[in-house]
């Protein structure tokens, strides 16, 4: 569970937000569109690279993490609305630090994503705070494949 309003976040709060299987087709489709390096497109080129096999673009694993987070948050918003709770406006992301592609994601890998609240700070704008989260992705063997810290605006409850 991650909070919806800024004030309800707590440092250290964490959640497993979902899992995603990376198929060969999806790995290649993403690479064709955005990252057409040979080791993301072709088995032989992957085998000849430092990765040792075809693997997903790091931007693909990071983008799927974003999708997983949005779906998780949307489910929380739907549940809150069903209980008659107010919903905060959605804030924009400001940036990412320390994004690490720790080990390659290969066809058939299932990545489980988690987030943890790492920092909170108020802004000059009374309606927004900034929440820093650490996002991680772990494969089906428990090996970490991805991590990053993101900063995003989160609406405050207001007076």
């Amino acid at each position, binding site marked *: 569970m991650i909070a919806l309003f800024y004030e309800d976040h707590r440092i250290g709060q964490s959640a497993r937000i979902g899992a995603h299987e990376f198929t060969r087709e999806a790995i290649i489709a993403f690479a064709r569109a955005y990252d*057409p390096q040979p080791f993301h497109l072709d088995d032989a080129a992957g085998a000849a690279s430092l990765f040792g096999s075809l693997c997903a673009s790091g931007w693909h694993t990071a983008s799927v993490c974003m999708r997983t987070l949005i779906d998780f948050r949307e489910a929380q918003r739907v549940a809150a609305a069903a209980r008659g709770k107010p919903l905060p406006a959605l804030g924009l992301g400001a940036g990412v630090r320390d994004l690490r592609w720790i080990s390659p994601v290969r066809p058939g890998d299932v990545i489980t994503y988690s987030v943890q609240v790492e920092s909170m700070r108020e802004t000059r704008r009374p309606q927004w705070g900034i929440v820093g989260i650490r996002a991680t992705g772990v494969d089906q063997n428990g090996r970490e494949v991805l991590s990053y810290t993101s900063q995003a605006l989160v609406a405050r409850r207001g007076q």
Partner: protein
Amino acid sequence: MDKLYFEDFLPGEIVEYGDTPVTADAIVAFAREFDPQPFHLDAQAARESMAGELIASGWHTAAMLMRMSCDAFLNRSASQGGPGVEELAWSKPVRPGDRLHVRRTTLSARASRSRPAIGLVEFLFEVLNQNTDVVMTQKNSVFFLRRAAEEAAS
């Protein structure tokens, strides 16, 4: 053109490349798959949001930078991928109708001690729009094979 190796990236060098038109369709298609928030999906919903208008997902801008880098130099290089990104900042919105290009500064280059066949080159990438506003900055390193190692192997 000759293939680019570790030795070809000189600290201090600045090059510009790329010309990617950003369409509403491309913004929405990326967002549907990876970042389905109202300000990336629908012009009307975006007007009522914090963004005030339809804007590209920041991850989409990062993906467009990656594509421009592949087309401009990575795919004629001995790139072996990168360990990650130190910093990624979205400083201005990317809108339908924008045209993006890249200014790449080579910050440092160092040979690997543990793996003599490769070196690590650190870049600063700035993504600019048609008004030369910087919309995104990204600092990250890429592994490249060293020319000497490749020649010795062949």
